[in-house]
């Protein structure tokens, strides 16, 4: 009996020892578990691209590099790119952080509406956005006409065409990224840390600068990085506002090269893409530098209470915010809707010219629309789900096991988002037709390649959003879960996921929305039966049917807005029920 018992015990110990060994090797394997897919999905396509840049007729060589780098236009474009992306990021950070602070901490009214409207710039196609801006601040725009009228002679107050316009419009388009990522961080900053600063005599401004801002850095730096690399890959804004002034940035230059069609076109575009990649990596590096000092000591719950009363300034602030959102979100939406309502493009917006028929056409008569909406919904949901899982795990690994390899891999994940969609699409084709010589997985020409491309391109959105939350959760909560017997799944399900949820939701939301309205990649990779919304809009636009494309865009944006409002109403209703 005693011996039986002993063997049982030793067997159990043996079993535990084996498990113990397994869990350790899992720990070690983690690096490989991350490294291999990242290498395959992110590095390999980029490598294919780089390979193009060094393939000359005479074998491998740097001839194209020499050629492109010797061109003054290249360096001009590099300068413009850095200026446009850099300065617009500063604008985005300024706007995004201010708005997030107002919404998170003050007693400003209409937070749900602000939240929804602040998302519009991400949803409205950039050609609509720029068009609205040219109508507002172009040479013949409202602003300059009003100025001329006031001055009694022709004055040009500000012309949106040119580098300054690119900077401003980009900044206004990308600030929601900073806003979204910063908001969830702000809720998690323990009140007491701000109190401690106040009781040390710091004014509201000092507390903001020395406590709130540094503690919100994960969100600000993450959002800033996303804004920066969005600025790098953005084609629409520099194309519309830069080409007329002959201002090229790398993304437009790459487009120029790609459509050059010559035998060396791809190689030269690849060289430029490498330059763009280097700039993107520099941005990522800058962000790590900023985050170096970020730490958390304790984990606090989301605290949505009002921390700062605006007092007598409240109305003024509300008017300012309202005005800002009116110009940057509502007017573009209205201008888009107005284009969709007039019978034909260019007719004055008067009652007899208005019609519903474009909406009716795109929704009911156009065969492709419904299929496209279905496809986009499916693709965006799947991309969102894949990204939320992969991106969060990656971010977790990246933060809890800091290493040079981790940094490099984060850079690799960021690159596909920084490259123009066209380039990434081409890299996808080059890679996925035959990833390994002799192996054709058959995804090329199917909807699955679009999904892979979406995940590859948008994963960084999720990684950064999740990073924000993960950095705000101290290790002690996970330790407490472990010591209380929580195994991997339990820990994630009961402790980590709920605490990471805000960042994960932000990421899911961003990935879903951007994928849902994605244009370039889908228009390069789609095939019969896998049209996406982007493809349909792009086709309308190309066929000159601006009224249709704006009608469809309006429908999409309004539908998203309705969904958001329904969501927030439901949330409010639910909270009220819980409180009762």
């Amino acid at each position, binding site marked *: 009996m005693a011996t039986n018992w002993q063997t049982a015990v030793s067997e159990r110990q043996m079993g535990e020892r084996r498990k113990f060994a397994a869990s350790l090797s899992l720990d070690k394997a983690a690096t490989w578990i991350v490294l291999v897919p990242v290498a395959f999905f992110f590095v390999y396509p980029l490598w294919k691209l780089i390979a193009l840049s060094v393939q000359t007729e005479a074998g491998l060589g740097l001839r194209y590099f020499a050629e492109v780098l010797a061109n003054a236009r290249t360096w001009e474009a590099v300068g413009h790119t850095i200026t446009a992306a850099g300065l617009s990021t500063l604008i985005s950070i300024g706007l995004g952080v201010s708005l997030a602070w107002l919404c998170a901490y003050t007693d400003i009214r209409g937070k749900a509406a602000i939240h929804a409207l602040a998302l519009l710039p991400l949803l409205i196609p950039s050609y609509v956005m720029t068009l609205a801006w040219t109508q507002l601040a172009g040479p013949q725009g409202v602003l300059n006409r009003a100025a001329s009228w006031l001055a009694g002679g022709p004055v040009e107050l500000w012309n949106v065409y040119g580098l300054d316009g690119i900077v401003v419009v980009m900044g206004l388009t990308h600030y929601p990224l900073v806003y979204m990522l910063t908001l969830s961080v702000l809720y998690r900053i323990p009140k007491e*840390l701000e109190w401690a600063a*106040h*009781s040390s005599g710091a*004014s*509201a401004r000092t507390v903001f600068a020395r406590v709130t801002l540094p503690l919100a850095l994960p969100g600000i730096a993450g959002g800033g990085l996303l804004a920066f690399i969005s600025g790098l890959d953005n084609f629409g804004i520099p194309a519309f506002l830069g080409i007329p002034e002959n201002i090229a940035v790398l993304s437009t230059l790459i487009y120029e090269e790609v459509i050059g069609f010559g035998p060396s076109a791809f190689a030269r575009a690849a060289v430029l893409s490498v330059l763009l990649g280097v700039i993107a990596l520099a941005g990522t590096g800058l962000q790590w530098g900023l985050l170096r000092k970020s*730490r958390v000591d304790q984990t606090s719950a989301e605290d949505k209470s009002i921390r700062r009363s605006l007092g007598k300034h409240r109305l003024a602030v509300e008017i300012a915010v309202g005005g800002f959102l009116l110009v940057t979100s509502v007017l573009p939406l209205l201008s888009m809707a107005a284009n969709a309502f007039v019978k034909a493009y260019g007719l004055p917006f008067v009652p007899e010219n208005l019609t519903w028929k474009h909406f009716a056409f795109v929704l009911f008569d156009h065969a492709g629309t419904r299929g496209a909406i279905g496809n986009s919904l499916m693709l965006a949901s799947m991309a969102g789900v894949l990204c939320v899982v992969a991106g969060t795990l990656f971010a977790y690994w990246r933060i809890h096991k800091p290493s040079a390899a981790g940094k490099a891999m984060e850079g690799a994940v960021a690159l596909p988002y920084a490259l123009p969609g066209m380039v990434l699409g081409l890299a996808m084709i080059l890679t996925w037709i035959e990833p390994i010589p002799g192996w054709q997985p058959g995804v090329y020409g199917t909807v699955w390649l679009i999904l892979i491309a979406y995940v590859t391109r948008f994963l960084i959105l999720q990684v950064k959003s999740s990073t924000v939350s993960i950095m705000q959760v101290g290790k002690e909560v996970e330790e407490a879960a472990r010591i209380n017997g929580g195994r991997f799944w339990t820990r994630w399900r009961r402790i980590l996921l709920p605490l990471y949820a805000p960042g994960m939701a932000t990421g899911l939301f961003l990935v879903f929305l951007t994928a849902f309205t994605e244009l370039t990649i889908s228009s390069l990779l789609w095939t019969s039966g896998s049209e996406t919304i982007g493809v349909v809009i792009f086709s309308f636009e190309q066929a000159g049917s601006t009224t249709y494309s704006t009608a469809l865009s309006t429908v999409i944006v309004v539908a998203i807005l309705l969904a958001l409002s329904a969501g927030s109403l439901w949330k409010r209703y639910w909270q009220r029920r819980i409180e009762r």
Partner: protein
Amino acid sequence: MNSARVVGVSKKFGGVTALHQLDLQIGQGEFVALLGPSGCGKTTLLRLLAGFESPTSGEIWINNECVADASKRKPPEERRIGMVFQSFALWPHLTVYENVAFPLQHQQQVPEAFRQNPKARVAQMLEMVGLGGMEERFPSQLSGGQKQRVALARAIVFNPTLLLMDEPLSSLDAELRMQMRKEIQFIHRELGTSIVYVTHDQSEALAMADQIVVMKSGRVEQAGTPHDIYYAPESPFVAKFVGRANFLKGSWAAPGTFLLEKHGAPALPITVSRDFSAFYAQQVLPVRPDQLKLSAWQPGADGIVGKVVHVQFQGRELIYSIRVGEEEWEVVTDISERFAYDEPVQVEVCL
């Protein structure tokens, strides 16, 4: 040099009332200790004094200025208050040096010498709390007690005129605690700083305070000098909480005579000299653990008999828990008097 007054303040968190109509007076340069069981509202009161929260009703006055009522509130940064938070509230992104130097850079009316040379001042403070040489560490690289000491240094570095401390020594060992007590008393005495000091350690309150305020569930139970609180508790609660009193059951025959109950019947008259009127209603006599004496039980002896249910070794003394009838009394004895578990002992009351 600050005085403060709390007038009829209530504070509610949703359905929970943390403070009920509380009144409190802190004189200029006074050292007030807030004592009370966990959850009685001590931290809440400090927060209201610091200005982080508004009272639900009532008023708070500092230096004859009404700084807060239900509708308005003077912001904390204008109150020139030093504060030690119960949870430390160190800034995780700043080093120890930066944490401590922060008030020097931002407080109004920092002595010029400190402002000119913050390095020296911070070094002096860290030396004082025993953290010399840890300037460059981040809070996450400190032990619990080290964090608490940084919080302490941060609160006092700029010579505040009013100092709010929420259990500032709770994570320190006896030695260090004794040292810090002295430092705090020094600041209090030399600079005339008014101090509101939350503690759960009676000996700290008794040793340091000019005035002790005993709180119970959001109300002031008794306020007075340490001596009064200890020797003239006005309620059984205070007697129990501050003096760890045992309540002997019986009945008050006359103001000076207590009839101790024995085997359910009043007997054993005990003559007292102090005023125990606070205990008439409950018909109990408060007796502190050191006012009871134990001796070996002699069969047939007439006296109170109890049984040892628990002993705690305390170095030079022992704390016995003695079951007498339905009650359990705590008795402190010298280390030399040993009784075994379950042994019957004779208990004597020596007031």
